[in-house]
């Protein structure tokens, strides 16, 4: 063996015409060194080889027969507009071969506001379905038998009223709570790191998670009480090691929370599920799922479970949204296919494949069908399911799995040394790690070190317009408001009030089960907003503090001429105007995705701008006021949740009303091209779609500020 390896080395050197093989090694962003060739020698160094699927440590899969017996569940995440429209959409998808439902709620619901609340004007029915009460939930599932259909719900902030509404809707359909199957995301820790759709301070939030685990352990044996999610970390820019480590560490934190309630580990651990992102780094993503199962099995051993299912990691996966591009969008079909392959070769239990237009808008009917068919083709045409873990035993894959687990273990240990994940999150450390990864990744793309086809290489001259789905937000809001009014008229106010008071009291006394109380309140037709408020009365709504690191983006551009040129232009601007160009980065509405906003802020400040960062969840009125007081030249609005057509024009109106019309407004994020003209007419200076390099944005912003000639 050793001899033949030496022979190979000789041949390889000859082929590449170099004395050393260094150029053939690749250091991944995770800091793992990938060799050009792996051999049996690599296997001999590993702790676990020759393992079996369905058996500890589950590297090869949680089930013995995996897809050979039953393929993964095709579970497409969807929801928009009203409950009626989403219901029609669900039923159509089920007819077309989808197997499970996965509900996307609008941001107003996520953040525990009723549709008639003033802060959610631009959010109702966008990026998910609006749910205010049991009545909406009943419509959402009308004609869908909840005793047979497994339903996954992405809900974290307003998890109590929403899960309660689901339970009551089923009950009124004649389905008992024990019969319900599915998953509630209920993973609040990651909300504090990324995504930001929390409502309450960490302590209260963790109590809610614990109450739900306890309730489901007792009453809902077929329901996953939590979906511990790395997906959003990956989408926020985390590399695979950090996604893996933080997710497993979050999981351990939830286990400890549940144990502290006096539950036995086997009472709830089998119902913990996971959720990972699958990006374009093909081998790494396969290894990630294998390593995740290994780590979970290892880590759960400390709690001494008797039931093997307690240490068996089952996961849902979704292809990466960040990997999708607005430019040359049909490429996204190919990207999603590659990612879907990685997910199933890694052994996922269910999968969502993104639609090709998800980088720009809600999926259209066509793009949804293609996304679903990607999976059906893999299952039924490509014969992928015929063998368990085809990568098992691969020198490279087994080695990569162990390397990834090894790196992740180090991070998990670091978090434990900080006193556990909840503590680390409080200190803001995981968030900073992820943001650092994100800025580095963006700089690699913008500087051309990472290839993105159609964005920084192989661009097309003319972009095809693609059809997108649009939701008439004001119409949805009207309809929701009417329904809310009807409910408030027909219910017994006194009973509702009493039920809500009971919730407030239980939060105060730290007693009782909040889900149990929420079910009682929702049954009496309390609303999502009211139940959320009953809790907030005690602990308030939480506002996370931002922490930003500068200099990370600039590092990716050492010696880059274009970068230096823009920096020089900024210096020149300062010489002429007596200060740096100053921009206010705004997040309006309930859209908590702030990766883009943060990368832009870091990048702009590295280029010499003074950057004001606004808090999350602002109204246009608030942004206008604060931008005016900071006397900025421009406002950059980051919008990823489709609220731009309502919120941006409102912002410009407010600026005009305050006599600050010279402040330029830019918009970046997920904006369909068909909306560009509308926004320009409303007075937007320029629009930056997904994938626009930060330095391009900075160049354009600076140019337009200068043209405005304001000093």
């Amino acid at each position, binding site marked *: 063996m050793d001899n033949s390896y030496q022979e190979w080395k000789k041949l390889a050197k000859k082929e590449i015409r170099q004395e050393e093989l260094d150029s053939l090694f690749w250091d991944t962003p995770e800091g793992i060194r990938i060799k050009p060739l792996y051999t049996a020698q690599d296997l001999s160094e590993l702790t676990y080889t020759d393992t079996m699927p369905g058996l500890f440590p589950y590297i090869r899969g949680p089930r013995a027969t995996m897809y050979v017996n039953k393929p993964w569940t095709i579970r497409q995440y969807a929801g928009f507009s009203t409950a009626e429209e989403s219901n029609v959409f669900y039923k159509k998808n089920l007819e077309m071969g989808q197997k499970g439902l996965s509900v996307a709620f609008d941001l107003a619901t996520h953040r525990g506001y009723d549709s008639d609340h003033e802060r959610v004007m631009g959010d109702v029915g966008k990026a998910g379905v609006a749910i205010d009460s049991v009545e909406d939930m009943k419509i959402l599932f009308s004609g869908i038998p909840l005793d047979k259909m497994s339903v996954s719900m992405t809900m974290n902030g307003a998890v109590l009223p929403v899960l309660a509404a689901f339970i009551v809707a089923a009950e009124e359909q004649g389905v008992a709570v024990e019969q319900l199957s599915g998953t509630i995301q209920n993973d609040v820790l990651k909300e504090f790191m990324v995504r930001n759709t929390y409502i309450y301070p960490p302590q209260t939030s963790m109590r809610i998670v614990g109450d739900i685990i306890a309730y489901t352990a007792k009453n809902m044996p077929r329901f996953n009480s939590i979906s511990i999610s790395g997906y959003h970390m990956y989408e926020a820019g985390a590399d695979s090691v950090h996604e893996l480590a933080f997710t497993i560490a979050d999981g351990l934190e939830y286990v400890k929370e549940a144990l502290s309630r006096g539950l036995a580990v086997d009472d709830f651990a089998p119902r913990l599920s996971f959720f990972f992102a699958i990006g374009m780094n093909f081998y790494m993503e396969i290894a990630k799922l294998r390593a995740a199962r290994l780590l979970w099995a290892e880590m759960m051993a400390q709690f001494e479970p008797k039931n093997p299912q307690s240490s068996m990691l089952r996961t849902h996966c979704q292809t990466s949204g960040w990997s999708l591009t607005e430019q040359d969008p049909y490429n996204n079909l190919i990207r999603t296919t590659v990612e879907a392959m990685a997910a199933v070769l890694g052994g996922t239990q269910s999968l969502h494949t993104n639609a090709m237009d998800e980088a720009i808008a809600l999926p259209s009917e066509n793009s949804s069908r293609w996304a679903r068919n990607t999976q059906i083709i893999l299952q039924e045409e490509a014969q992928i399911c015929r063998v368990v873990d085809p990568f098992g035993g691969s020198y490279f894959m087994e080695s990569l799995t162990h390397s990834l687990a090894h790196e992740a273990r180090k991070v998990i240990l670091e978090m434990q040394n900080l006193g556990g994940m909840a503590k680390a999150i409080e200190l803001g450390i995981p968030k900073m790690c992820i943001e650092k990864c994100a800025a580095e990744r963006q700089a690699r793309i913008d500087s051309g070190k990472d290839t993105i086809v159609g964005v920084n290489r192989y661009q097309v001259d003319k972009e095809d317009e693609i059809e997108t789905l649009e939701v008439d937000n004001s119409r949805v809001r009207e309809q929701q408001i009417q329904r809310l009014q009807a409910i408030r008229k027909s219910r017994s106010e006194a009973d509702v009030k009493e039920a809500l008071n009971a919730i407030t009291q239980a939060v105060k006394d730290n007693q009782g089960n909040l889900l149990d109380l929420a079910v009682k309140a929702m049954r009496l037709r309390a609303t999502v907003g009211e139940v959320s408020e009953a809790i907030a009365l005690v602990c308030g709504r939480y506002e996370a503090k931002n922490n930003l690191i500068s200099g990370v983006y600039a590092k990716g551009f050492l010696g880059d001429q274009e970068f230096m040129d823009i920096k020089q232009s900024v210096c020149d601007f300062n010489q002429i105007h007596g200060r740096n160009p100053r921009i206010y980065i705004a997040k309006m509405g309930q859209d908590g995705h702030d990766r883009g906003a943060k990368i832009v802020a870091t990048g702009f400040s590295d280029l010499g701008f003074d950057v004001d960062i606004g808090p999350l969840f602002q109204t246009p009125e608030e942004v206008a006021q604060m931008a005016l007081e*900071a006397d900025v030249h421009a406002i950059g609005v980051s919008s990823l949740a489709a609220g731009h057509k309502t919120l941006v024009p409102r912002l410009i109106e407010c600026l005009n009303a305050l006599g600050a019309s010279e402040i330029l407004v830019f918009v970046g994020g997920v904006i369909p091209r068909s909306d560009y003209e509308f926004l320009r007419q409303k007075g937007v200076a320029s629009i930056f779609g997904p994938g626009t390099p930060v330095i391009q944005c900075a160049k354009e912003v600076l140019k337009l500020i200068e043209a405005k000639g304001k000093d």
Partner: protein
Amino acid sequence: MLAQELALGILSQNRRSLARAITLVESSLPKHRQAATELIRILKSQASPRETLRIGVSGVPGVGKSTFLETVGLAMANANHKVCVLAVDPSSQISGGSILGDKTRMQKLSLHPNGFVRPSPARDTLGGTALRSREVISLCEAFGFDRIFVETVGVGQSETTVYSMVDVFLVLLLPNAGDDLQGIKKGIMELADFIFVNKSDLDPHACNRMAKYCESVYELIHTPREGWKPRVMTGSSLSSEGVDELLRGLMQFEQFLLQNSYKETVRRTQKQDAFLQELKIVAWDQFLKTKNNVINKASSSLIEDKISVADALWQVIEGE
């Protein structure tokens, strides 16, 4: 023209005008300096004088300054004071750019009808924004604000600069500052009129220990204000614990300032300090201009090892 327009705006309490005036005062351009000087002259002659309190707040990053300022500021704003916060955020030495407001953003106070929050980039210290804070204070007072907070990150020279422009100086401390306490904190403790040991919600015992320690230090060191012994308090800006006591303390301090016209003395010193600091900058610029040749000559002689540093200095002083 510009100065006239902004002055009018400020006197009629237009926030936009105040915001733009602050930009003007902070600008590094000579023509802006001229306009700023004129603006301040107009305001001085036209604004009606009122009792104001200038409050400096200092503390290391992470001590919770912004939460503290928001809590205290809101309490004052609700009691019908007009409150403004001038927050100076550090600029990057490398890019010259800055990230503002990520730690200092005080949304509720910003949006309160009686509140105004303005983050500014620090830029370089000499002639930088911190130095201009003094003038910004005068703009805010002309506008009608009577509680002016100047926030500074507790590092380097910025706190002595800020100290010299405020009536009262407040220092925030963390309970678990550790071993570095002895030496480093003494300098800033000498300046403090109030010490607020923050985050008692997390660890009340550690807060009390820290407070005891501070008090013991005050037994030993000499503090600059005769008749006012620095107050040490504990509390939490998050839970508002201790904030009422602090507000009462500030009121007492204001009384103390008014006794024996102590406040006049303080304000007079502030003006002298301002004059001297600005004079140093102007004089230095002037000196460089007029002595450019001699300095270059002396400098090269020095580098070539022909003369000593002392001789080089003499040449510059004596030379034309």
